[in-house]
């Protein structure tokens, strides 16, 4: 625990150092990212120890603030999230050292290092805090620092808007959290979580309200649809290694909060689980659909974060259903799936964002339809990106499959039980996961295929080169390897996560382990099959090699079906690739298509362009904002500059008060 504090200290101090040395960009970046790396390594040690050895470490200190206390605790759940945070943030900081070099001399790099380290430190505090006030402060610092990171390239037009959207969204979310904390700590002397824990018993009639507040408050951070609007804005705006951390780790603090606070609200009724499943389905399916319709790489990934949060929420829903249904197995499986997916998504989404960063770094565009053929030019980025794609689609034998498998497993068990509501919800989970899987496969086939394969569609892509910076490459490779390992070592991961799962399901370790046992055996079965798969693939490759040895292997142009002059422009683009599916689901997407038909005898040019803006932003939020604005516009009429009327206001106020209060 002290090590965690020390790590946080290192982070903050190195951040300050980077800020001070801002004059010398090279130095400040080195200082900042080194500090971040060291801090993460330091903090991950106690976390892993807690996960392996179990037990909890507590640290209580006084804090001169009403209801506040400096109360930290490292239990299984916190430790698990701490591992996720440190793993991705550390790697991303290594990457960032190289990525930021591009701005050297054009921008002050001290602040971005500072805020990055503060962000990491605050995330650690969020998962460790056991006092409401401390949690809130850390939470807000987290939001604020990430806001400054999002607005790093403030000279780019969209970025300011994105930053505004982000901070507004997260603050409105916090408003709900404030209410929630006030509610949970009602009348209590201090806002320690220990006092919250009695809430379920003391005020069960308010538990539902608290649950809703928690879902909205934490859901905004996590990016539940329709609270996700900030996500597709903020992630593309931020520097890539920051997007990796935000999308991979930061939004997970919302999930953490949700799990942590559901525990306070006493035994959950069935409808909470069903509600979570519904949220998960909406976020998952709509998220992947909107991702499919995007042709900016980072926006696409951002929407996939929404989708994966949806998957995680499906897991949570299954878990809660299990608890309320009194089935330890289902509960444990649900939470296990959710938590493991938190970890896995952090890994592959971090990897994908880093890869995107390299692409941007090399081509200066994230527009998928302008890229292509990058695999030849950037082999490392390409290979790792492919690994990320396979992982995020959830295909065996990579890590994405493990967590989705657990959720499936729980859902199948749930279908087996009685209780129509449970069954329907679990069927929703199964069907939803299958649909999401299929669509995600389509989306990433598109992302990888169009960006890295085929011929370059623009001169940028033509001239792309792999970055020389060792930090960037190694970061991507590390994450890719992690994706493979966590996939092949599924049972071990589950075993490691058991304390967290137990904490989340509110069970003791033994029960949890027992309930997890069948799933673990199945996972070892999966590994067996994966082994067979790899052996088969290996031997087939060998066979292929032997067959082709000594035979004529020639190169030719792609078969062009008899076209006279095929050009790279004729390749399928991201938009055309996704078109069948976007048309299939047009009722949700409402894609705008603008077409210039070729006309005249000798048509000069024709063009078609599609864009899919966020339906909720346009259909829900903008109208609401407009309404509020018009109402406020009315209020402004009272201030029209005429002194006489101001004086009358005084008299009127007086009169009203007299009539109101003197009766």
């Amino acid at each position, binding site marked *: 625990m002290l090590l965690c504090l020390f790590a946080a200290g290192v982070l903050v101090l190195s951040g300050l150092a980077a800020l001070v040395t801002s004059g010398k960009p090279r130095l400040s970046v080195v200082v900042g990212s080194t500090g971040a790396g060291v801090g993460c390594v330091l903090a991950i040690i106690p976390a892993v120890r807690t996960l392996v050895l179990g037990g909890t470490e507590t640290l209580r200190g006084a804090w001169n603030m009403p209801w506040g206390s400096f109360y930290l605790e490292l239990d299984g759940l916190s430790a698990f999230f701490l591992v996720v945070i440190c793993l991705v943030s550390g790697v991303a900081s290594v990457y960032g050292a190289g990525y930021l070099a591009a701005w050297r001399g054009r921008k002050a790099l001290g602040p971005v290092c500072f805020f990055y380290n503060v962000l990491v430190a605050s995330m650690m505090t969020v998962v460790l805090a056991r006092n409401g006030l401390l949690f809130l402060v850390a939470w807000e610092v987290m939001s604020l620092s990430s806001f400054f990171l999002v607005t790093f390239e403030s000279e780019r037009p969209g970025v300011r808007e994105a930053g505004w959207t982000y901070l507004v969204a997260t603050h409105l979310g916090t408003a709900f959290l404030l209410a929630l904390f006030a509610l949970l700590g009602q009348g209590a002397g201090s806002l320690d979580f220990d006092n919250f824990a009695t809430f379920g018993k003391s005020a069960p009639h308010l538990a539902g309200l608290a649950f809703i507040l928690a879902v909205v408050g934490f859901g905004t951070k996590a990016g539940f649809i329709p609270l996700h609007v900030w996500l597709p804005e903020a992630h593309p705006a931020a520097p890539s290694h920051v997007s990796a951390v935000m999308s991979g780790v930061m939004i997970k603090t919302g999930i953490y909060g949700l799990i942590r606070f559901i525990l306070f609200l006493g035994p959950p009724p069935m409808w909470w689980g069903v509600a979570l499943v519904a949220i998960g389905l909406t976020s998952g399916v709509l998220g992947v659909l909107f991702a499919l319709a995007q042709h900016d790489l980072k926006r696409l990934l951002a929407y996939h974060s929404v989708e994966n949060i949806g998957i995680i929420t499906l897991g949570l829903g299954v878990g809660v259903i299990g608890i309320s249904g009194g089935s330890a197995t289902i509960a444990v499986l649900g939470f296990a799936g959710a938590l493991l997916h938190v970890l896995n998504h952090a890994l592959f989404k971090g990897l994908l964002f880093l890869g995107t960063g390299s692409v941007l770094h090399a081509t200066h565009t994230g527009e998928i339809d302008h890229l292509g053929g990058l695999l030849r030019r950037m082999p490392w980025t390409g290979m790792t990106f492919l690994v990320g794609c396979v992982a995020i689609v959830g295909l065996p034998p990579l890590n994405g499959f493990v967590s989705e498998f657990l959720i499936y497993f729980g859902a199948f068990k749930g279908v087996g039980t009685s209780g129509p509501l449970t069954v329907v919800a679990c069927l929703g989970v199964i069907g939803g996961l299958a649909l999401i899987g299929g669509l995600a496969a389509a989306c990433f086939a598109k992302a990888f295929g169009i960006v890295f394969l085929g011929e370059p569609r623009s001169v940028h892509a033509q001239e792309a080169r792999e970055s020389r910076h060792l930090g960037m490459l190694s970061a991507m490779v590390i994450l890719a390897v992690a994706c493979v390992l966590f996939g092949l070592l599924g049972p071990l991961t589950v075993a490691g996560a058991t304390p967290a799962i137990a904490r989340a399901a509110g069970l003791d370790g033994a029960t949890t382990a027992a309930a997890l046992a069948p799933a673990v055996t199945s996972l070892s079965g999966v590994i067996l099959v994966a082994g067979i798969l790899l052996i088969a693939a290996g031997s087939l490759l060998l066979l292929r090699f032997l067959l082709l040895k000594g035979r004529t292997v020639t190169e030719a142009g792609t078969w062009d079906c008899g076209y006279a002059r095929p050009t790279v422009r004729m390749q399928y683009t991201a938009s055309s690739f996704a078109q069948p599916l976007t048309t299939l689901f047009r009722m949700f997407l409402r894609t705008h298509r603008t077409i210039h038909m070729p006309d005249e005898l000798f048509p000069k040019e024709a063009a078609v362009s599609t864009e899919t803006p966020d339906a909720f932003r346009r259909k829900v939020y903008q109208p609401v904002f407009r309404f509020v604005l018009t109402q406020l516009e009315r209020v*402004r009429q009272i*201030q*029209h*500059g*005429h*002194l*006489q*009327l101001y*004086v*009358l206001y005084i*008299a009127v106020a007086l009169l009203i008060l007299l009539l109101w209060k003197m009766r």
Partner: protein
Amino acid sequence: MNAWTDAIVVLVALTNLALLGSSRLSVCIRVVAIQGIFFGLAAVLLRAEPLTMDLGLVALASVVMKGIVFPALLLRTARNVNIRREVEPFVGFTTSLFIGLGLLGIALWIGSQLPSAANPTGSLVIPLALFTVMVGLFTIASRKKAISQVLGYLTMENGIFAFGVTVVGGIPVLVELGVLMDVFVAVFVMCIATWHISREFDHIDVDQLNALKG
């Protein structure tokens, strides 16, 4: 409760209505001055207890101030800013008169509602004071010229003065003088401000001072 006070009270009512009804600025100024004098006298006459030294002092001071100093100041300013004489109300004079009568009614009603503690002597003075305050307020709100707003403010002060004298037995002299001092400074400042305004805008129509809004 003696004949003197009733007479004064009625006269005050008349002054208020005159203020509302008259269109000439100089007249208004004088009317307010007279009103001030009346109230100064009332302060002496209304007391149940015998006339003390400092009460007399206060009464005298207020009479001097309101009867002589303020009118002089205001008339001088009015001359300096050489405005057209009309008062230029938002609300016409006759309408103002009727409104004034309405206000009188309201004031009497409120006076009847007041608990006895507020109105030991049970005289008409309290409603009249309130009436004066209302009229002052109405003047501020309904007239355009800066000076007439100053007049409105003075009228309010008159009313409040009377109110104070009746309601609270013996406000400490220091406070009274402080208040008087304040009023004096206020009028003084307002006059200077008026002069500045007339110099900047070459008019003192307050309703045209509406550049700042929103």
